Structures are given as structure tokens and as C-alpha cells.
């Protein structure tokens, strides 16, 4: 089945421009302690309470690599189907800033721990592969707080030295939608792996966005601008849209795009120049003499390989094969690890088709309405499968099930108990139904006559009346059968 290709193009005058985007994602490594010190990394602690002498760069203090962070980076590399470099080197990136106590950031420049890899995106018009250039480990800086005092800046070093993975994509992205899908996929992979919590509100995932434009069909890249430190997908998309249009306007106006670093102003929805290429820092990278090159063995990598769980792409394939989900349904179910776990728990004990519909339909809608994540769902997977079984065995109708579901959302109650307590059990006794139906026909003699004379549309009226009289509990299938006979 061929789908229509969805292209994101900017039209000006008679020209069509393509947008080229590459991302440098900074993902905080999920780890108890920092990259080169034993300080805690918990989010939201009181300022400067998670700072060691190493983090604050006291004289004579030395960095010692946290092996767990190395493992996390390698696992992420495996998840990105990337080359793991058995030898990597930590470099110093030198610059002065108040929240950078050492006067340099320890990063990896020439020899990163992870090399080329790829990420598969599921776009509405088909799959798209985005290349990964590299992944390297580096320290986060502290935080400068400029708005607590009119004259002074405050510095919080809790974040100083926290491990980050910088994941650099190739310039393979072509639209804000692809960026959205890419970030979500990357986030999902890392959450499956447990290497980054992907929490963008807490700054665990941020990105520098490189944007350039070129005339459609051109093979050469345009001059790019880098938009620094954007911390939500929505802002990334807005920034790209603004920046791409700005560049197109410049070109159409006969001007050139200058390579520069820009900032996205979320209030004004525009990007602004931060520094030009000429003003770019000279970071004077050189290998950190306090650290030896990082060498990992094949056995070390093999061991980590064994710890890699089933990842979204493989899980999607399995869901399609094993549960006969459509690719669309499978995509939704694997989009994050919690949803996929929930789904698998539900279908362990109930019908897959019903479960899929109920999760994607009722459950997601209800959670959305309450602004809840699946992990906070008031309805446990076990109780949802019980509800589905009640539908499947005819104990309740689909309609009644919705009423029960609503009550379950108020608190994780056993659907069987709700059905019993409220007397919602479906009436499937033919004799009882016959009596009901007789009553309805009796009180609607005129309509029954009309029906018999050919007004078949009235059948629905009778079904409705029977359901009404039964309080919705009559088994709709049986009602249909008996009504047909009686009329």
C-alpha cells in the first residue's frame, strides 16, 4: 500500500524550500551519583546540597569515572544500534563561567564512547531512518540564577557534574513533525533501557537544534544556525518553524544566512542571535590528563548486551505477529514501556481485540481527560481484563460496561462487584425477556400494526423501548431475536 508522501516545504514567491534539521540531544543519565563524583543527583534538592569537593573544583580534587554511567551510555548506544567504541577519551572543554567551577567541562571530543547508529521513526507516510552521528558522555554545568536579586547572580551547583549523554543526529530530519517523532522515539528507547527518564520538565532531556534551509531538490546544505538549549518538543517545533522561515526570508531578500548560535524566546516565539561564528568560543579541547583513556572489553559490552530489554521496534513487530495488532495499534502500544507493559498485562487474561479497543479508546480518553499517565491509571490492568471478560461472556453489554468503567475510574474497584452491587447484570433469560417484550408490544399496539404493514424502521423503536424498560440490562442480541419473532 503506497501512502502519499507528506513533505514539509516552505513556499515563497515561486520557490519551494526544504528544511534540514539536526539535533544534539542532551539526555541526563539515570544514575544515583554524578559522572566523576559520588554526589547525589536527585532532582529538586535544596540548592548546593548535592555538591562534593570535586564538583566544586577545590584545589587538588580529581575526577574518578562512575562505571555505572559508562554502562548506561553503552546500553543507550546498543539501543541506538550504534557502534560501541572500546576506547574513548575524555577531553576538557575550556571556558569561564560562574556555574562551571573547574573552568572546563569534561566531555568527549575526538573519541566518543558511541559511534554511528540509527533510529527508526514511524511517520504517517511510512517509516523513516534517522542517522545517529555519535553519543558521548559529559558533565553538566551548575545553574546560574539571575532573578533572585537585582544585582547578584546566584549559583546552584547541584547539577554540576551530573552525567549527560549528548546524542548527535545526522542532519536527516526534514520537518517539525519528524523532530517530534524523533525526540519521542529517542525518549522511548532510553526509557525502555532505563538510561534516561526523559523528563523534559525537569531538564533531563534538552536539545540544541541545528536548522538550515535549501531549495527543494538541491543537494547542498545551506548555512545552519544552532538554536541552543530548547527544553520542550513544542518549543523545538516552534523554534524550527520560526527559524526556517527567517532563513527563507533572508534568502528571498537576496541576503545570506550567517552561521551563528541563536536563542529561542518562548514568550515572543522568535529566535535571536546569541553569538556569531566569529565570536564563537575557542574551547581549547585537549585530553583530560587527570583521566586515562576509557577502555572497555568485549566481555563488558557482551554482558551489557544481555541486560538490554526488548526495545520498541522489536516489541512492535512481536505485537503485530503475536496479537495481530495493526501497525497503528502496535505503535501506540509500544510508544512507551509502561503502556506496553499494561497492554501485555491486560491481554494475559482477556480478549486481545477488546483489550486493544478499550485501552486505545476508553482508557486513553479517560486518562487524557484527567491528565494522568498510564502508570497513574486508577484502573489496574487486572481489573480492566476482568471488565473485558464480563463483556466477552455476555454478563454485561458494551454499553453497561461503559457505565462500569466510569465507576472504576473513580477508584480501582473490581468490575464484578460493581455489576453485582448495582444490579447491572445483563438480562439473558428468554422467558423474562419475552414477558418484557410482550408488555412493550401491548402498550404500543398501533406501532406494532404499522410495523407489520411495512414500516420496518420501527424495529429500532421497539428495541429501544425494551432496553429502556429493562433499565439497559436486556441482552441486546436476545431482544432482537425475540422481537423479530413476536412482531
Amino acid at each position, binding site marked *: 500500500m503506497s501512502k502519499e508522501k507528506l513533505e514539509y516545504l516552505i513556499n515563497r514567491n515561486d520557490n519551494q524550500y526544504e528544511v534540514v534539521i539536526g539535533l544534539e540531544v542532551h539526555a541526563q543519565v539515570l544514575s544515583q551519583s554524578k559522572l566523576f563524583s559520588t554526589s547525589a543527583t536527585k532532582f529538586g534538592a535544596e540548592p548546593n546540597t548535592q555538591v562534593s*569537593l570535586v564538583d*566544586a*573544583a*577545590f*584545589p*587538588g*580534587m*580529581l*575526577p*574518578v*569515572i562512575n562505571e555505572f554511567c559508562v554502562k548506561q551510555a553503552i546500553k543507550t548506544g546498543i539501543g541506538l544500534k550504534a557502534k560501541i567504541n572500546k576506547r574513548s577519551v575524555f577531553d*576538557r572543554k*575550556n571556558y*569561564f*563561567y*560562574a556555574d562551571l*567551577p*573547574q*573552568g*572546563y567541562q569534561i566531555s568527549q571530543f575526538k573519541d566518543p564512547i558511541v559511534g554511528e547508529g540509527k533510529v527508526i521513526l514511524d511517520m504517517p507516510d511510512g517509516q523513516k531512518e534517522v542517522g545517529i552521528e555519535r553519543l558521548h558522555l559529559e558533565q553538566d554545568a551548575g545553574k546560574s540564577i539571575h532573578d533572585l536579586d537585582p544585582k547578584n*547572580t546566584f*549559583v546552584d551547583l547541584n547539577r554540576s557534574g551530573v552525567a549527560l549523554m549528548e546524542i548527535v543526529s545526522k542532519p536527516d530530519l526534514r520537518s517539525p513533525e519528524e523532530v517530534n517523532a524523533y525526540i519521542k522515539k529517542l525518549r522511548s528507547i532510553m526509557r525502555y533501557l532505563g538510561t534516561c527518564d526523559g523528563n523534559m520538565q525537569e531538564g533531563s532531556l534538552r536539545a540544541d537544534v541545528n536548522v538550515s534551509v535549501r531549495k527543494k531538490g538541491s543537494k547542498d546544505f545551506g548555512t545552519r544556525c544552532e538554536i541552543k538549549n530548547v527544553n520542550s518538543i513544542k518549543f523545538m517545533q516552534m523554534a524550527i518553524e520560526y527559524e526556517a522561515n527567517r532563513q527563507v526570508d533572508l534568502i528571498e531578500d537576496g541576503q545570506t544566512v550567517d552561521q551563528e548560535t541563536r536563542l529561542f524566546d518562548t514568550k515572543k516565539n522568535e529566535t535571536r542571535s546569541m553569538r556569531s561564528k566569529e565570536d564563537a568560543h*575557542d574551547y*581549547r*579541547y*585537549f585530553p583530560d*590528563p*587527570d*583521566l*586515562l583513556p576509557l577502555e572497555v572489553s568485549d566481555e563488558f559490552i557482551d554482558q551489557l548486551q544481555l541486560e538490554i530489554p526488548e526495545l520498541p521496534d522489536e516489541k512492535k513487530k512481536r505485537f503485530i505477529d503475536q496479537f495481530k495488532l495493526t501497525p497503528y495499534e502496535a505503535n501506540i502500544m509500544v510508544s512507551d514501556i509502561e503502556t506496553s507493559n499494561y497492554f501485555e498485562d491486560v491481554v494475559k487474561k482477556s480478549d486481545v481485540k477488546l483489550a486493544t479497543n478499550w485501552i486505545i479508546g476508553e482508557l486513553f480518553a479517560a486518562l487524557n481527560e484527567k491528565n494522568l499517565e498510564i502508570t497513574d491509571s486508577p484502573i489496574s490492568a487486572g481489573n480492566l481484563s476482568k471488565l473485558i471478560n464480563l463483556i466477552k461472556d455476555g454478563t454485561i453489554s458494551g454499553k453497561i460496561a461503559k457505565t462500569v468503567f466510569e465507576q472504576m475510574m473513580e477508584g480501582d474497584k473490581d468490575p464484578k462487584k460493581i455489576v453485582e452491587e448495582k444490579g447491572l447484570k445483563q438480562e439473558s433469560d428468554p422467558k423474562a425477556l419475552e414477558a418484557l417484550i410482550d408488555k412493550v408490544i401491548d402498550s404500543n399496539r398501533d406501532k406494532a400494526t404499522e410495523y407489520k404493514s411495512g414500516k420496518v424502521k420501527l424495529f429500532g423503536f421497539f428495541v429501544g423501548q425494551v432496553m429502556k424498560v429493562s433499565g439497559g440490562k436486556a441482552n441486546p442480541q436476545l431482544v432482537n431475536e425475540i422481537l423479530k419473532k413476536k412482531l
Partner: protein
Amino acid sequence: MSDITKQTLSELVNNIKEKKLSSSEITQAFVDRSEKSKELNTYITEDFSNALDKAKKFDDNPKLDLKLPGIPMAVKDLFCTANVRTTAGSKILNNFVPTYESTVTQNIWNEGAILIGKLNCDEFAMGSSNETSFFGNVQNPIDKNLVPGGSSGGSSSAVAAQLTPITIGTDTGGSIRQPASFTGTVGLKPTYGSCSRYGIVAFASSLDQAGPMAQNVQDCALLQEVISSYDQKDSTSIDFKRNLYSKELTKDIKGKKIGIPKEYRVDGMPKEIDDLWQKGIEYAKDCGAEIIDISLPHTNYALPTYYIVAPAEASSNLARYDGVKYGFRADGENLIDMYEKTRSEGFGAEVQRRIMIGTYVLSSGYYDAYYLKAQKVRKLIKNDFDEAYKKVDAILTPSTPSSAFKIGEKTNDPVSMYLNDIFTVPVNLAGLPGISIPAGHDSKGYPLGLQIIGKAFDEQNILNIAYAMEEKINFKNKITDWWIK
């Protein structure tokens, strides 16, 4: 006993163990002599009264099985000492009091020694004469207005003047061996990775190494035994089997092959130095060693390589002294202004010069031509030694190209000052151990030293050679106590 301060470390340890002397008596003697020796300007920070308290506590509950039981000791002010000011000889750390202890000094206190003070040194260990210290020149006890060498000039002066029985210095390009040579004392730069760098104010991380300084080889070996340890807090610390250097010390070096590198016969080397070297060769032969001519072809490039690598690392290591977190801060209009004023006022001229050299050689466009090339040459220099050590067990050279010079003589000529390190620098670049022992006097009566360079981790071997030669040389330091009124 009136001659307490004249005793060697081994004698002091024996006297304490045999309860002939108490820690208080010994500590008091060194404190008294230090008090009388202020003109030498060896101390940056004295900790005398605490030392006497600690000595008393030691005597109340003596632990005589320790290696340095109740022995007072002053250390170079580059080692961070908990609750005792640590300045690195710089204004920028003038008010800095660490809450933590360096691993090397902790090892020393763990063996029962007692801190009596922090010794003067060149600012951030950058210098060869102790003249770059913010806290002023140090006098060489050998003669008035003579430099004690550097950067461990306070340490060499204090040991030679017997203000401390032993001490520790740090050696990045010769900062232990050159001052030892200038003061007639023994100084060992251990293999890189032997002594932890944790808690030592960093100059050039890939070269810095702490080491013992003493009046004789035996004391030096004992102190090396104490300070050398594998430390997980230093990622460049190496886990190798460490000897009990003082116990395994032997004068039997019969059959040891000692190399004489022809490239160390540099142009313009004073005849006195050459003669000393020849004498050294004869002493080594007398001890039963076999002398073999060797070549270290890249020796010429060692000094320029060092003066790229060391400043490059220093420029980055010293970035943390920015007035934000600790140490000296000058007020400024804004952050950049504060940085500029703090670092301009807080660092002395030599430190600023090296920061600028280092920043330059790491700059984009120059990195390949300088830093990267220097790293390649460094590898070649190391290969030279590896080749030589296929034929010999150790290498004998002069420690310095001259004896001690006068204060002020070379302050305006940094290149001539840098040339002081010509024989010591290759050893740091190759990460090898080297020891300087006093071997004679020049015509002015100033001491001259010989350097014995060993294989990596082979400290025992060069200590043994030094021990054997020391006996033959029978050097006597000429200290007149001229500074004591």
C-alpha cells in the same frame, strides 16, 4: 640532647623507639631551630603550637610500631592539609584553608608523623629558584642570597638547614631533584602513578608527582615507602607491587648496568659539572657497576616539549582560581571584569606567563603545531628510554647544568631559568623515577648533584645505586648556620 636536629630520620626514629627521646623533645627542637631561622623564609605557615600539642598527645599514648613515630615534619605548601592554610605560594590562595587532606600527607600522619608547618615554594610550583612565590624568596642555607632551587625551595632549604628531619616536595620538571642538588640533599621523584595526586594543588597533571626529600638515601627510602600508595581517588594512580624500600635497601649493586647518555653532554656545560659526572662514573664503577654508553636521541627536544605540555595543562588546571568559590577575589563591575581583576592581581608574573603560553598552544589553529606535536615528541622521548633500558638498568647524569645561582640572577631571563631543568625534564616526560644525590662541590663550595634515572616502578634499584654511591662519595654538606644570630 642539644644535637637533636642534626640527627638523621633513622636516628630520631630509633631514639623514639628506644625511648631515649620523646616526640615533644624532638618537636620542640625543630620548632626552636625553625624559630631561629626565620631569615631563610622557608615557612609560609607555621603550625608550631598545634605540633607541640600533637607531640604531647603522642607521648601520652605512644605508638612505637609506626614508621614515623612522633616525628615532626614540615611539608611543601602544595599539599592540602585539613584545617591548615594551603596557599601553593600564591596570593590567589592566600586565605584558603582546606577541609581535606592530601593522600600523601595522610599516609605520613597515619605513620605517626606530626605537621609542623607548610613550606615555601614557587607559585603553583612554577619556577626553579623559589623566586616566584607570593611569600618571598627563600634563602639557601649554603650561602646568603643563594637560591635554594625550585619549585620545592622551601622544602630543600628546610631539610638542608635541619628545620625538619625530612620533607616532601613535588616534581613536575625537576622541582624535587634540582633544589636537592642546590642544597646538598637527596630528592626522589617517583614513577608517575606511584604517589597519589589527590589533594595536591595541580600544576601539570600528567607530570606532577610527589616525592621525598631527605639528608640521606636511607631516610629518603623510608619516606618513599610511607607516601607511595595506590589510591582510587586518583585515576592515574597505579596499582603495582610496592617495595618496603628502606628494608630492602642494599649497597650491593655489583653487575648493575648503568648507562651514560651522550646527549646530556650539552653545549656550554661547565667543566665542573662534567668533572662531577666523570667522578660519578668512577664511583659507580667502584661499587661494582658496569658503565655503558647509551644514546637518548630526542633529549634536545625535551625542554621545548615540556614547555608546551606543562603550560597547556596548567592553563586549564588554574582556570578554577576565578574568585567565584574560594580564595582571593577582586571586585569587578561584572563577572568578566571580576575574573580579569582577580586573576591579574591574584597570579604572579610567571604564572600568568605560563597560562598565556598554555592558552596559546591549545588554541584552535595552533593545537596541532604545538600541543599535538609535543605529545608525539613526548612519546619519542619515552621510546628513547625504553630502548636504553633494553641495555641498562639505570642511567647516570648530572642533576643540573650548574650549581645554585644568586637570588635575582636569572629573574629577568625566563629562558635561562628554564634551562635549569634540562636534565630533569625528560624524566617527567617519560614518567620515570629519578633521584638526585649530592656528589661534590664546585669551586665556590656549592653542592652539586648527580641524578640516577630508573625504569618505571624500579625505585628500589635507583635507591640502591644511590645508597651504594652515597657511601663512596661521602659527601659532607657545609652548613655554617650563617643566618642564626
